[in-house]
């Protein structure tokens, strides 16, 4: 049949198509040596509720307000995903028009944004006690229909019985959640007002998983430290609580020692790829690392590994024994041999190769030339900082807010 019409567009079809293409994609992994479980254990203990893809502190409020507002409008489970997406993408535009838009999530993707702020901040919102609903974003969305009907029933009953049953239809959000400004969401920037900054600081200090953490301690004692790259270099380190100092010490030693393993892994790949520039570069970086480690050797020798693993397991019970064995073995090598010699030590190279092979099987880069080609020449070679850099940004937002003149 012949026709003349407007052309349709189906996001569903597009996604479906891309999913099928994805079935055939070449698989790749990020956590090259499987250190992620230990790294995240310390990061979660030091900076609870943060993640590496967070940008700014105000999103904690923006997401809560957005969904609180949709609940006020009684948007049901079937519609919430779409309505939420729409509200969040409109926020991108509002933020883009504002004077403080650095870190605007979705600035480039706009309506095609895959990872919405709500998904980036969902976990953190729970940890900070701003979201009281227990469960994933998807579970929350499904629960809404039931939530409204409970609220309705409870609402009637509370009139009858003088609000005795406050707990029957628990709110999904913190009871003291600060009100959004009048012009939200039409106007919106990423700058916190003083009241908002105070609210977030209180959440960090008081919410159960955060209380007592280094994040809470840092939030309580405002100090701008924009140039500090690692939390153990923080000028207030000496005044941290004993527990937090211990935690930071463990994290620091782990970060410093394992950095060498990551560098050696990249060095091996550079050599195998016949990439002389990279080989030289990684050799230099290994040497630099060796010097630093040498200078810290006294501290490493005193390091109590039993306590370290206790601390690591405290934050994450599911650390794989393979990861533990690998870290211990590398640690032994660093102690036993001069760090400067590790780059050319066969047993060190074998250890790295075996580790990758165990994690990635036939896709190990060290064995598979195709997997090696897909190496971006920089696989996890930065020193671990346990989300300090993200936390520093979020704290900076809060400190700026506390100093703000407008309430």
């Amino acid at each position, binding site marked *: *049949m*012949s*026709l*003349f*019409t*407007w*052309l349709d*567009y*189906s*996001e*569903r*079809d*597009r996604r*479906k*198509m891309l999913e*099928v*293409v*994805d*079935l*055939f*994609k*070449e698989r790749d992994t990020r956590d090259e040596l499987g250190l992620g479980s230990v790294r995240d254990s310390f990061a979660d203990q030091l900076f609870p509720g943060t993640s590496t893809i967070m940008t700014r502190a105000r999103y904690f409020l923006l997401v809560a307000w957005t969904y609180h507002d949709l609940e006020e409008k009684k948007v049901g489970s079937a*519609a919430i995903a*779409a309505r939420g*997406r*729409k509200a969040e993408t409109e926020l991108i535009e509002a933020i883009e028009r504002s004077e403080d838009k650095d870190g605007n999530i979705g600035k480039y993707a706009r*309506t095609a944004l895959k990872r919405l702020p709500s998904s980036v901040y969902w976990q953190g919102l729970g940890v900070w006690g701003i979201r009281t609903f227990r469960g994933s974003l998807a579970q929350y969305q499904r629960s809404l229909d039931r939530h409204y009907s409970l609220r309705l029933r409870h609402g009637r009953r509370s009139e009858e019985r003088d609000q005795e049953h406050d707990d029957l239809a628990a709110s999904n959000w913190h009871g003291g959640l600060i009100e959004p400004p009048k012009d939200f969401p039409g106007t919106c920037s990423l700058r916190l007002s003083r009241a908002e900054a105070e609210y977030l600081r209180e959440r960090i200090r008081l919410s159960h998983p955060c209380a007592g953490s280094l994040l809470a301690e840092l939030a309580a004692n405002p100090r701008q430290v924009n140039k500090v790259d690692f939390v153990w270099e923080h000028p207030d380190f000496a005044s941290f609580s004993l527990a937090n100092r211990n935690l930071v010490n463990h994290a620091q030693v782990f970060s410093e020692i394992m950095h060498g393993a990551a560098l050696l892994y990249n060095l091996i790949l550079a050599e195998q*790829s*016949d990439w002389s520039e990279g080989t030289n570069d990684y050799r230099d970086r290994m040497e630099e690392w060796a010097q630093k480690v040498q200078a810290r050797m006294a501290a490493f020798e005193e390091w109590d590994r039993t306590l370290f693993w206790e601390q690591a397991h405290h934050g994450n019970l599911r650390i794989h024994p393979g990861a533990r064995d690998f870290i211990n073995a590398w640690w032994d090598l660093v102690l036993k041999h001069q760090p400067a010699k590790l780059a050319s030590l066969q047993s060190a190279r074998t250890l790295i190769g075996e580790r990758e092979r165990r994690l990635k099987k036939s896709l190990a880069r060290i064995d598979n*030339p*195709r997997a090696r*080609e*897909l*190496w*971006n*020449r*920089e696989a996890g070679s930065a020193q671990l900082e346990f989300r300090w850099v993200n936390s520093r940004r979020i704290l900076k937002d809060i400190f700026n807010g506390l100093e703000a003149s407008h309430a």
Partner: protein
Amino acid sequence: MLPLSFVFFDWERQDEELSDPLALLEALRLNGDRFSVFCQAGNIRLPTKYSPLVTFLEPCIHEVQPEEPGGVFHPKVWVVRYVDEDDSVKYRVLCLSRNLTFDRSWDTVVALDGELTDRTRAISANRPLAEFVEALPNLCVHPLAAGRRRAAHRMADELLRVRFEWPEGFDASECRFWTSGLSGKRSAPFGEKRDQSLIVSPFLSDSVIRDFLMRGRATHLVSRAESLQDIPVDTLKGCKSVHFLRPQLSEEAIEEPRNPEPDEVLEGLHAKLFVIDRGWSASVFSGSFNATNHALERNVEFMVEMVGKKSKVGVDRFLAGEKGVTGFSDLLQIYGMDEVPMPTDPLRQEFDDLFRLLKREVIEGRPRIIVSAGGQPALFNMRLQWNEFPTIADVRVRVKAWPITLPEERAQPFEPDMAFREVSHEALTPLLAICLQCEIAGKKRESSFVLNLPLEGAPADRQDRVVAALLQGKEQLLRYILFLLAAGDGDGDAAASGELATLLQGAGDAADLAITPPCLLETMLRALHRGPAQMERVASLLETLQRCGKSSDLVGPEFQSIWEPIWEVAKQSIAKK
């Protein structure tokens, strides 16, 4: 993506859960010979992540370059040829304003179905369409394979005698195709006599609008706000009405849950329409022509003209829209001459011109990729060879290139002698990514694109190698072989119907190849009976697996014991031919 959508369409129609990636893989391989895509050279977008499936698309994509300097190949036309069971030939022609992308803009489509008639004289209204198809092979930057050239020629020849059915409300005897920019030929599609005209075009040239103003009594204009603000106010004042498309749907329209996926909202004007009233009738033009000098004087363009009653399809009717239906006309907003100008990018034009110039220089250098054995076994070197190395003297410009199978970090700066050394089999590709990095007035901008280049010296079994790399485990291999064997089924439908689904299902249950499913022998014998073509496909796949060193992992002795004698017989029958 294109062949995938064809395959998807089949799946959806059959309403059958045959969502087996292997079925898809083979469909992709099979359909590869059946379609050709012609696109402006230098305008293939760089995919964010490489998919090995792209290997099967390489032979289908042909980059073209119009003869006119500065001209762009702009048509968005599909011509599909169908052969019915009774050998009658049918055509479907789609003339769109949308590119082969996932754009979400407001675009139009004219879909025309027609049957090949046995008349000897050509239908003159079809001539531009036939000329357009005939011209495609000669516009290609790299020579088109003989088979594809013949297919284009046959289409062009047949299209002259296809009786198209035109959309309802239009007079078939007056409808026709328009093309422009082929072998220096320009067309003047809009005629001298125009009572009232409507121009819908995302891009505008002042002189084109003024030409309309001069020749007609009233001209209505619909465009993008960004384009309108570049047109002199005097010209706009000469128009009877000036509209632009509201950037987004209004709030209340969304509040109604009528539209479950706000993602599917169309945004941005990309349609190109001209409606011209003449007396009692009106012509509607739809296709690739913008109301610009470029479209009329330089580019290769294509559109259809449909003629109907003014009262049904005329300018007034279009602007009024349909009652009770929210459509395009409801989204139009009157453009005020005192409108606050949209922020524009003063450097955009300059960057665009520079990028276009650079692309052309690179393409005209005629690069080819030469593959040779690497220093280590199973690795290769890819060298870029030029007819003429582009001398990019502009100091503001940096150019780098890399095969799209490798990460961008492996890119190399442009040099007369560029090579990518020691790359794997999977990395061999004719698709070269090129990134132009330019700096104007302290601002830096990049433009990346992909070229499909001649690949010389690559192993012949590249496609099979990709299949082999994608097959995971014995069970998948067996299912794939079953698929290959059944796909050649003479009944045609067997491959796509329940029979095959059962086959695949059966194989899936026998996860271990040691228990060879009973259907395998039967299927092989049937395939043998039908002719050895599909057997050859299987044999070549098995050989490839052997070369990759994967065969011992994947092919068990059980399978070998069935396969070998049958393949012997098949070989004899091939030898006899």
